[in-house]
């Protein structure tokens, strides 16, 4: 199997507070890795370190054989090769849906406008939002906005997609429509690193589950095994909080 992302001995701290301690993880091409863990365990910060939104104190992030954090060359635009979707969608409010999707491919990748538009429309069609292309983000529901945010990341043809609790801000009835889109991406063999609190979804989509707690990776397992017989005490305790 081909390695696409490799994180080695990552250390991250804010001032005196250590957030990530000696975190190492390898993600293979086409693999779906789901990170779960209690709030504040550092899983979101981990994602942010991968595409350089946070600087790191020690360790390395390697994308396809090239060290990207700490960045070796200034101005090296590796971020366009990593797609990221945020909890709060973060669409650009002054741009239409198409405008949101087309901005980066045209300005960053200098692609042809007509070609980008055709692809944007095709992707919107796939997530069922063709009719919204000329609307503004404000006119869309949370679930629709999040699907647009996914399309905005996809159109850059990223080598890996990062999902940072993308359903956490959604009303329950909208969670499904977003998760369905991500499941569809998994079927297309996309490489994805997903942080989520949706345990049923994690179990359904993951090739591997990474359990984090207190800034470290505690356990890495196959999903079935993790959810039925977790190896560590901390994982057991964490999974218990989801039982009623």
């Amino acid at each position, binding site marked *: 199997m081909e390695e696409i992302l490799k994180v080695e001995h990552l250390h991250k701290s804010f001032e005196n507070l250590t957030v990530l301690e000696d975190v190492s993880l390898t993600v293979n091409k086409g693999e779906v890795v789901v990170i779960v863990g209690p709030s504040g365990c550092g899983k979101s910060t981990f994602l942010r370190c991968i595409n350089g939104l946070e600087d790191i104190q020690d360790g390395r992030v390697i994308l396809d054989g090239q060290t990207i954090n700490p960045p070796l060359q200034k101005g090296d635009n590796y971020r366009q090769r990593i*797609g*990221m979707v945020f909890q709060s969608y973060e669409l650009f409010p002054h741009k239409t849906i198409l405008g949101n999707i087309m901005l980066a491919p045209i*300005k960053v990748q200098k692609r042809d406008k007509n070609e980008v538009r055709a692809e944007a429309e095709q992707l919107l069609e796939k997530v069922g939002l063709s009719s919204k292309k000329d609307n503004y983000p*404000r006119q869309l529901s949370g679930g629709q906005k999040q699907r647009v945010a996914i399309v905005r990341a996809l159109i850059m043809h990223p080598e890996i997609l990062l999902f940072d609790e993308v359903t956490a801000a959604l009303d329950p009835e909208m969670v499904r429509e977003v998760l369905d889109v991500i499941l569809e991406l998994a079927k297309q063999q996309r490489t994805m690193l997903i942080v989520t609190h949706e345990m049923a979804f994690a179990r359904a989509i993951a090739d591997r589950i990474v359990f984090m707690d207190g800034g470290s990776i505690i356990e890495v397992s196959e999903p079935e095994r993790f959810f039925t017989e977790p190896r560590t005490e901390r994982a057991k305790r964490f999974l218990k909080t989801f039982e009623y």
Partner: protein
Amino acid sequence: MGIEVIFKGKNLVRLLAGLGAAMKISLISVAISIVLGIALGMLMTLKKPVINVITRIYLEIVRIMPQMVLLFIVFFGFTKLTGLNLSAEVSAVIVFSFWGTAEMADLVRGCMISIPAIQYESSAALGLGRLQTFIYVIVPQIVRRLLPLSINLITRMIKTTSLVMMIGIVEVLKVGQQIIEANRKTAPNAAFGVFAAVFLLYFAVCWPIGRLSKYLEKKWEN
């Protein structure tokens, strides 16, 4: 009702010339205030303690001092103190720019810090560079928030130029007074007609600006 006085002789032309004098001072001051205000507002977001202290004092002075006092200080006080001979127009432009820059800077600062940090991050995550993020994502959002606020400031500046008659500039209100004085005998009621005309002239200038702001707000609502 004294309206006929306005159409006597060159009175209407004189009123319009007075309006022109007021507009000249306001437009030059507005232009200076916008440019300097944007620059200063951006400086204020840098969170440098020295800049913060200076701008805080500056803003407070502008807020506390009546514009008329500022006009007197610059036109009478400053010229006496330094021996420099500033014309009334230049003094007026200095005072109005001093005031406008402070308020504009505060508006710009407010709009800039109101853009959430994660808008910068989601732009970065798409691979946009700093300059690209600024041009395509941040500035358009700032302009949309800034416009209605700055138009409010601009109309206030235009209206407040009526104060400059106190330092001898013959602007529209002053012309109005002169017309009333000159026609005291023949048209004792001229005050109503003339001031009504002055009101309409200010209205004719400020109303379209207000409408433009409304229109843009509506257009950008989405």
